[in-house]
């Protein structure tokens, strides 16, 4: 008799880990199947978490009750808060992690979940029941023939689906460097009648740190006071390491120009589309020939390893060229390469096949998260993992799916963008994707999302108590600032002025509270006071957007019945089947005129109905 679980998570990368823990914490009997239990939460590219907009995503995952922030705080070796020359809305934390420790720590965190089982095995197919007219996932089949039944299945296979790596003229099938690809599962998914595509990503070479002349490079220290990712972490006092900044050399540019035809990217061997924001070094040289040098970062991969990641030098040039390129940089003349950079192509499903819960519209109870949906980045993966996990669990609990609105989180933007637009290139989060950026800050992610996490049963008491305390402190501080005067002026007015900081009043605030303010609470209060004008302006826009975009498009609405829509627009609407007029407007190629037509039709329809 086959073993039966509530939820089956396929894959144990950054999406899989979040999905698994969310389901387990929400009380479901959860299993996570991975090809290799030693490589859970492997950081296949740069061992860094966060960065601009990505740091926001991690905070949101954490606020919902996710795990990525805690693990990063535990194993980070260099923390930096980015964008501090701008306002608090775009401050974003980044941490260089110890690659091996990240894996180990994540595994031990997951192993502490009583409802979670971790299994090793290769999933070669999803079991699909198509009795009753509608396809539904009911479990998975393993390579060894076992069938594991489940009420819902979440697939988080990263780059493993028909993965194919390229180094120069050579190609080899792999899921990640040195690991087997998922070919059988990939082929099954290709045959399910879902739209799919090939995407590409790349990674740079790793050098032996002992062979680098470190003194020739400018050191990039971490912040004196590290900014943690998790709302649960009050302080990080581990010693920080330095990264180093290097630059490409004219010789390197010459080598690339001469050998670019040998790059897998340029020889036409790669069919997948790569991300423009993460171009290979050959791309940078070819597309920006006027730029005489490009920045590179030398980033240690851990405390007890010699491997150094050459950030900025992603490449698919042959091994010998990579070696010469490295040697052309002053300070790296003697550097030895441990692993070469490579490009990898993999299958991705068109995310327009999904609904807001990240469940396939065509196949019930089958959820997809992470790179399989066309994204790139650990943070984007983790965020989808927690969304898919929560919604798989909600499905089994017979509860409606949880949709974070675009106005309330990058999480909402990520999901809405993916399912409305699909991804022509691996999708990465940027703050400019947020219509209401000022509202979506790292300091208030808990405000926005911890109540949601609590509601679904993912936020446990410790986090909830902390959150409540912070809310309480915040209210008291705000009241105090409004009531306390200095030289005839309210403090809340003084703080609006340039040059006056809430930190100036910290000792009095501590006295007033009778305790230290919770981490981040002063920033929230200060931001909301200092920029109240802009925040209010944004609030009004949010209201308008809710009004304008809120008109619901009935399920099964016949877009074909509207002659005013061009065939192209109609096709795009049919493809996505948007749930609201606002979502329809965000589909590329759906023109404002088409939205106006739809709006008129929908209002005529509701008039006729009433």
């Amino acid at each position, binding site marked *: 008799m086959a073993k039966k679980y509530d939820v089956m998570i396929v894959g144990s990368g950054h999406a899989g880990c979040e999905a698994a823990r969310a389901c387990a914490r929400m009380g479901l009997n959860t299993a996570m199947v991975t090809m290799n239990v030693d490589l859970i939460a492997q950081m296949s590219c740069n061992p860094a978490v966060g960065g601009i907009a990505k740091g926001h995503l991690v905070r949101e995952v954490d606020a919902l009750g996710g795990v990525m922030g805690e693990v990063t705080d535990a194993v980070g070796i260099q923390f930096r808060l980015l964008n501090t020359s701008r306002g608090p809305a775009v401050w974003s934390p980044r941490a260089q992690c110890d690659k091996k420790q990240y894996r180990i720590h994540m595994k031990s965190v997951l192993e502490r979940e009583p409802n979670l089982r971790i299994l090793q095995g290769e999933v070669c197919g999803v079991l699909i029941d198509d009795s009753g007219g509608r396809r539904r996932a009911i479990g998975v089949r393993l390579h060894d023939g076992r069938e594991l039944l489940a009420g819902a299945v979440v697939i988080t296979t990263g780059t493993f689906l028909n993965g194919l790596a390229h180094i120069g003229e050579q190609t080899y099938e792999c899921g990640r460097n040195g690991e087997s690809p998922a070919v059988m599962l990939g082929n099954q998914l290709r045959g399910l009648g879902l739209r799919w595509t090939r995407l590409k990503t790349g990674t740079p070479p790793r050098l032996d740190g002992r062979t680098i002349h470190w003194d020739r490079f400018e050191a990039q220290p971490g912040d004196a006071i590290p900014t943690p990712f998790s709302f649960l972490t009050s302080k990080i006092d581990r010693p920080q390491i330095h990264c180093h900044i290097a630059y490409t050399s004219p010789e390197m540019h010459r080598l690339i120009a001469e050998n670019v035809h040998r790059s897998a990217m340029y020889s036409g061997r790669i069919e997948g589309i790569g991300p423009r924001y993460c171009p290979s070094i050959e791309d940078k040289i070819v597309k920006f020939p006027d730029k005489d040098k490009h920045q590179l970062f030398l980033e240690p991969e851990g405390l007890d390893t010699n491997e150094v990641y050459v950030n900025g030098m992603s490449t698919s040039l042959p091994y010998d060229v990579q070696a010469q390129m490295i040697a052309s940089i002053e300070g790296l003349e003697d550097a030895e390469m441990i692993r070469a950079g490579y490009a990898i192509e993999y299958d991705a499903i068109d995310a327009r096949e999904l609904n807001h819960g990240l469940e396939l519209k065509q196949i019930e109870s089958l959820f997809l998260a992470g790179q399989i949906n066309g994204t790139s980045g650990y943070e984007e993966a983790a965020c989808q993992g927690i969304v898919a996990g929560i919604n798989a669990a909600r499905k089994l609990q017979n509860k409606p799916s949880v949709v974070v609105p675009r106005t309330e989180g990058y999480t909402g933007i990520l999901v809405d963008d993916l399912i409305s637009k699909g991804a022509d290139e691996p999708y990465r989060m940027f703050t400019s994707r947020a219509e209401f950026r000022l509202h979506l800050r790292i300091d208030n992610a808990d405000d926005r999302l911890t109540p949601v996490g609590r509601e679904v049963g993912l936020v446990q008491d410790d986090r909830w108590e902390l959150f409540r305390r912070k809310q309480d402190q915040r209210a008291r501080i705000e009241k105090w600032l409004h009531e306390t005067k200095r030289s005839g002026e309210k403090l809340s007015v003084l703080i609006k002025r340039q040059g006056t900081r809430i930190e100036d009043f910290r000792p009095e605030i501590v006295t007033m509270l009778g305790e230290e303010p919770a981490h981040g609470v002063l920033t929230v209060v200060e931001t909301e006071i200092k920029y109240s004008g802009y925040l209010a302006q944004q609030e009004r826009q949010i209201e308008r957007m809710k009004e304008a975009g809120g008109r619901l498009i009935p399920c099964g609405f016949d877009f074909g019945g509207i002659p005013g829509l061009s065939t192209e627009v109609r096709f795009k609407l049919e493809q996505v089947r948007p749930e609201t007029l606002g979502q329809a407007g965000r589909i590329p190629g759906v023109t404002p005129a088409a939205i106006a037509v739809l709006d008129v039709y929908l209002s005529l329809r509701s008039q*006729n109905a009433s």
Partner: protein
Amino acid sequence: MSLQHTIAAISTPAGRGGIGVLRLSGAEARSIATQVLRFSQPPAWEPWRAFLAELEDAEGTVIDQVVVTYYAAPRSYTTEDVIEIACHGAPVVLRAGLDRLLHAGARLANPGEFTLRAFLNGRLDLPRAEAVHDLIQATTLYQARVAAQQIDGAVSRRLKPLKERLLGLITLLEAGIDFAEDDIDVAAAAQIIERLDPLLAQSRALAKSYAYGKLVHDGLSLAIVGRPNAGKSSLFNRLVEQDRAIVTDIPGTTRDVVSETASLNGLPVKFIDTAGIREGGDQVESLGIERSYAAMADADCTLLVIDLSQPADAFDAELAARLTGPSLIVGNKCDLPRQNPTECLPVSALTGEGIDALRQHIHDLVAPEGIQEAGFLTSLRHARLLDEVVLALERAKVATSEQVPHEMLLLDLYSALTPLDAITGATTADDILNRIFATFCIGK
């Protein structure tokens, strides 16, 4: 409002021109027309061809000879079957014809419903639909040309460089925020101001051009005032090029305000002939004088007509003192020996001398310098949107000098972009990202 019905309406404005058109649109257009028209032979309904027919009243009496044109779907204005019946313009005939069409099964079209259908059926985008409305309303050829240019997107074209500049600045700041890890310099306040200033100048100029655009669109009222018998009515007739006002040599003949709209170098100008202004006189006349003062106050500009063949007069000076707003002193009767040295534009309403120069002067009086035919704003909606752009850019400038963080400054810049988008089409986050990737070398 259902879009299934065949609709009918009189599609030329009442009282204009020698031809009135009845228009039908919808699937039933042909069968409805057949019930109302009498043909010499059964109609072949060959599309895009005009043919003759007779329009009958309810009793079967022929009331007009008409020209019928059939536009087959989808190659018609509304993309539905459209039939146009051109009649001889008498309002009573048109109304009778429309009645017949409605009895035969058509529904009376709501105002603008033909254009709405064209729009809904994908025939027109929003700015074009607005411009079509203007075209229908056009009184002068010049107006029609401006409206036609707007249909071709002259406004969008004029706004494009402005929008490009704005997007360039937004791209610079967005790249700085999202790619702070790459070596993109933080834009300095001075650099931002340097880019904001031309943006502001351009959008202010556009916002201002509405004043002229409004004149082209709405027309301009011009009051002609002066002492009795200075020749106001003759001048009025000269300017409107028809004998509209009663001209006599008895002072005070024009007891009431007479007005007529005529084209002045393309501008539709409503010329208002006022009663001769003179103190005293009989009661009717002083009533007329009151109206003249009122007309002066209401008009967009004023012509004070003085009589050059008579010596200067304290009364003229007093009238001149009453002039407010754009105005011009015109010395009439320059064909006679000149008795009056007052500085003025000499004309002769009798011979036509100086009239062309006068027309040009009036035009220059109201048209801003260097205004171009294409590209000024004629729609109040567009003007309001441009005002929003200006306000948002002004806020952005203040914010920049106050060192407000860039993500907030961007809020002002997007507030300036949104109204432009409302005219030229939306800008998406992906558009901005595409610009960033095209401009900067991004990525690790």
